[in-house]
């Protein structure tokens, strides 16, 4: 019995100790700041470069919850985060006009690209129009992987299909319901086409055979915005912290960190406030 008691003792000590650590983290002042953002900013490692500089300046710890744009907006609507950094302008405008968000700022941009296997079965290489390329893919019934998760990229993809006047369906059109990185891996495996933001693609370039087939269309412009959650909606929303982070992100320092961020030697995001 002694041994069991001893083990139980160790168990309880470990638990109490950790809970204590967590509790200390909880009570830390100023309160933690919660940022819901897209997988593209997290997966590329941009935030790991940006946020430590902010924490150093202000002492505010930022908790990053990386989900698709659609879910990030839901988290904002429920008051579960203090600000959101997303990329789907139509959804952002709705978020603000519905009264959930205030003080939207343009932050940075990059562009979407259509990726595909190097042998390009649908022959879209060289097309400048994204929706024409999508038409070719659907006409050829080549595999296309859709994010299918209501993310910013998925929103844009649906807009492109609408522009092309196509309602994609059939076995060639696969809705994955996963993040960008996972979808690129899937498309690589299935030799399929997909729409990606350039940042995620560049950060995964060494892990995939997919190549950029269509780029440069105005419809492929990908702007990121940052929006504070309306503090009037829920008690305890860290509005001050959110505004300080927005101020930092749009400051000369924040913007230059964005502009200088490189992955595999390439620039992933272009600052929009101070160029």
């Amino acid at each position, binding site marked *: *019995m002694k041994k*069991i008691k001893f083990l139980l003792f160790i*168990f309880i000590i470990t638990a109490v*100790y*950790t809970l204590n650590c967590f509790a200390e983290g909880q009570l830390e002042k100023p309160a933690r700041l919660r940022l819901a953002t897209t997988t593209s900013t997290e997966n590329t490692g941009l935030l790991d470069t940006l946020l430590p500089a902010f924490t150093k300046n202000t002492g505010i710890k930022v908790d990053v919850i990386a989900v698709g744009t659609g879910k990030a907006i839901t988290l904002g609507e429920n008051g579960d985060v203090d600000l959101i950094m997303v990329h789907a302008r139509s959804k952002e405008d709705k978020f603000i006009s519905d009264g959930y968000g205030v003080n939207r700022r343009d932050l940075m941009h990059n562009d979407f690209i259509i990726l595909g296997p190097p042998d390009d079965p649908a022959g879209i290489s060289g097309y400048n129009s994204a929706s024409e390329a999508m038409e070719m893919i659907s006409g050829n019934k080549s595999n296309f992987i859709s994010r299918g998760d209501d993310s910013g990229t998925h929103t844009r993809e649906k807009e492109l299909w609408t522009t092309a006047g196509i309602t994609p369906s059939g076995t060639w059109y696969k809705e994955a319901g996963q993040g960008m990185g996972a979808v690129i891996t899937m498309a690589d495996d299935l030799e399929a086409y997909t729409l990606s933001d350039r940042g995620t693609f560049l950060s995964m370039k060494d892990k995939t055979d997919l190549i950029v087939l269509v780029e440069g269309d105005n419809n492929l412009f990908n702007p990121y915005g940052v929006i504070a959650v309306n503090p009037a909606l829920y008690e305890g929303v860290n509005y001050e912290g959110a505004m300080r982070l927005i101020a930092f992100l749009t400051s000369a320092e924040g913007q230059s960190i964005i502009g200088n961020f490189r992955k595999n030697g390439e620039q992933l995001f272009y600052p929009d406030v101070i160029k």
Partner: protein
Amino acid sequence: MVLLKALTLIFSADREVIFIAMTSLSLAVASTIVSMIPALLLGTLLSIKKFRGKSIIIVFLNSLMALPTVVIGLMIYSIISRSGPLGGLRLLFTPWGIIIGQSILSFPIIASLIYSALSDIRPELPETLNSFGVTGIRKLYMIFRESRTAVLSAILSGFGRIIGEVGVSMMLGGNIRWYTRTITTTIALETSRGEFELALAMGLILIFISLSVNTLLHLGVKSHG
């Protein structure tokens, strides 16, 4: 290659890997302890007492074991979200949120395993104890003592379900770096990033932890028995 990577990760004592492993372990231990006590009581109660509605509770418990972790995550989310009834407590995206979800996850497993262990192995034990005039806490203690192996494996099954789950940790913890990132959410994240080797290495670390905990507890019980 993957094994090598896992071993390097463990022995290089990378601060973040250790933090993640410790987070996983301590959350699972805390949740197991939280759910263990009511589950033990309910399981024992079901096995030694006869009352109306007993079989309904048993069927209910067994069905709860099949509940997907994300569903539990969703239910708790809707309660502790700031727009939910307990929003003011700000439990979402904290370790506390994960502990709530994981405790609910392991409760039915421990309770129903305790119930079946006690009623199958020693149906006569409570009667015997009664005839010796042993009651209350003392009786409970004797029952657990006599069936400690079954009790232990029930608790370990609860622990096992928790430490390997990803739905609750992801939904209620938010996979926040240096805060609520656990081994399983790291695996999910690294997989989505295409870092398969790192993900597999983390998986091996998880097995290693689970193996250590199980071995330790079994040795404890064996040497005693």
